């Protein structure tokens, strides 16, 4: 697998992501600068990752200014080609703003930034990002965001659910999807969704922050291993 980590001005998880892929998984990984233009900009990569952070300070709306950055043309083309695209936290927000995934992100219902560990239930273990997990498996991952409150019109939500595009949901330790386990007010406890085709995934929690035992958990590792496995199979 050859991965690209896109760097926007204000990204701040690009090094963490590259560290997991390069140092922990020992797979090739490169940074791609936001100003890289053209549909073929990302053609050399298997998986493109939009990392967490505060691209452009998140100043207008989270992810909005990054969504019009030159590199996004290449990201869109990559997704259309069937290449893998993963947006984590701010990267998820960028995918929503750019229309690569449906819906929008609002401020956390608490109005506060939340940095804590949450539980996630794996809702779909057939995506290229989750095949190393089991459906129903409960993962523990950190979140760190002030805007993670997923919103979509009822019609869109119904479509997402109907097509099985919800990949992760916030739950309690026992896997129950409850309001108390929802850290940000997201509709239907949604923590991550995919596109119809299944090659674009956006999620608020940070798998790159829980892929080494020293950091308190390794539940994120399965996601990276899934991507590697999916690409080997291709």
């Amino acid at each position: 697998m050859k991965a690209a980590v896109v760097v926007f001005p204000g990204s701040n998880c690009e090094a963490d992501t590259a560290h997991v892929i390069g140092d922990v998984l020992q797979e090739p990984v490169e940074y791609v600068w936001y100003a890289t233009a053209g549909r073929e900009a990302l053609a050399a990569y298997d998986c493109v990752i939009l990392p967490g952070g505060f691209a452009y300070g998140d100043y207008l709306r989270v992810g909005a200014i990054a969504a019009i950055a030159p590199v996004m043309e290449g990201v869109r083309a990559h997704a259309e080609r069937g290449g893998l695209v993963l947006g984590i936290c701010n990267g998820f927000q960028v995918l929503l703003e750019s229309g690569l995934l449906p819906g929008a992100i609002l401020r956390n219902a608490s109005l506060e930034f939340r940095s804590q560990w949450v539980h996630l239930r794996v809702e779909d273990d057939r995506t290229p990002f989750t095949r190393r997990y089991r459906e129903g498996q409960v993962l523990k991952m950190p979140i760190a965001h002030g805007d993670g409150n997923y919103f979509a019109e009822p019609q869109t939500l119904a479509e997402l659910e109907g097509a099985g595009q919800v990949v992760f949901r916030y739950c309690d330790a026992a896997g129950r999807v409850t309001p108390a386990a929802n850290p940000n007010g997201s509709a239907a406890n949604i923590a991550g969704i995919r596109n119809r085709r299944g090659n674009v995934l956006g999620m608020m929690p940070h798998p790159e922050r829980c892929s080494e035992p020293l950091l308190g958990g390794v539940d994120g590792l399965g996601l990276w291993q899934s991507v590697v496995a999916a690409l080997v199979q291709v």
Partner: protein
Amino acid sequence: MKLLARIHVTLKPAVNDPQGLAIAGGLHQLGFSGVEGVRAGRYLEVCLEATDRGAAERAVTEMCQRLLVNPVIERYRFELAEPAEVDR
């Protein structure tokens, strides 16, 4: 000509507005019992150079559609003023 666009971006009525709720709660706590609801939005002033008002209007509409507003959750309106009318 130089124009000032005053753009109001508000959440669509169907979208939850926790910030508006929090502000309403704060106003109630301060004793403003007449407050029935608050909606929080964004206000942008864009100063721009355009050949005429029509061109400006088209440009601002396009700015809103392409960047300033997320149509999934927001809607907008704007006015154009000439700097002479502007109070700052």
